[in-house]
């Protein structure tokens, strides 16, 4: 009778021991975020413009002879590349449009530059914050564990 009881107790103990070994330690989740530095894009400046001299000559019926003499005197061939008043106005407006286009392009480039420079700064700040959070977590995780026995041990 006693032998059987001992066997039962030892058997149960063995079963409990075997079952408890089925439990496993949960997997430790690791979180890592490593920022990568982008190389800085350095572009050359645009070429400076140096406009060539352009001189307009208005030729009318009255001054035609005078203009002709002047051109002959200057030694240039007597060939005038002429446009009408309407053509001149259109040429001026075309130049004005091109100037506006250059200004618009410059505005767009400046906006891109400003946006990406600010974004770069924001990214740096965010990376610093992530680093500080990670550091905090590391500190928490690396704190030495104190067991209940350690806590109640008066000699420690």
């Amino acid at each position: 009778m006693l032998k059987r009881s001992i066997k039962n107790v030892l058997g149960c103990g063995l079963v409990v021991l075997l079952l408890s070994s089925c439990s496993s330690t949960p997997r430790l989740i690791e979180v890592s975020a490593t920022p990568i530095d982008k190389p800085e894009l350095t572009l050359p400046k645009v070429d400076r413009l140096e406009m060539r001299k352009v001189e307009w000559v208005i030729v009318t019926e009255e001054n035609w002879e005078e203009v002709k003499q002047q051109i002959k005197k200057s030694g240039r061939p007597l060939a005038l590349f002429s446009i009408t008043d309407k053509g001149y106005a259109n040429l001026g407006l075309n130049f004005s449009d091109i100037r506006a286009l250059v200004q618009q392009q410059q505005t767009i480039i400046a906006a891109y530059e400003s946006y990406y420079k600010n974004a770069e700064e924001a990214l740096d700040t965010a990376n610093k914050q992530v680093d500080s959070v990670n550091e905090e977590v590391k500190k928490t995780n690396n704190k030495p564990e104190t067991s209940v026995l350690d806590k109640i041990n008066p000699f420690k």
Partner: protein
Amino acid sequence: MGLKIAAVMFILMAGMAGIGYWYYNDSQAKMAVLVKNAANAETASKISEQALVSMKKDYARVTEELNSVNSKFSQIRTQNSVLAKKLQKLDDLGEAAIAKTESIQRAINGGTKNAGRCFEILSGDPLTTKEKEALNAKAFNKECPWLWTGSTATK
């Protein structure tokens, strides 16, 4: 008989104590891992919160830049319409050129020179002393007075 029972009881108690000790250690290890996991989850949550804040800021910046560009474009369009208005005022440029040939010729040559200078300034050419010391935008350049940034002339 009594000794045997005591021995069995001792073995039993020792076994139970061993199991208890093992169980305590095992659960402590599990708890430590769970605490670490909770801390890591908190980190992930904080990082995603920061990402959200950063994205919100980026959207605000995008809107700001877009508004600024739209406003500048509007200014540029207004500036560009100046010449068209000027030419509209001169109802008949041809007739004016016949009536005042020399003065119109001087005006269009001056205008062409100034318009060319606007392109030079836009390309990054440094301002001349005369341009730097110009007391107002018109004196700076009649074709692109909006490029005047102020006078450096000492009074």
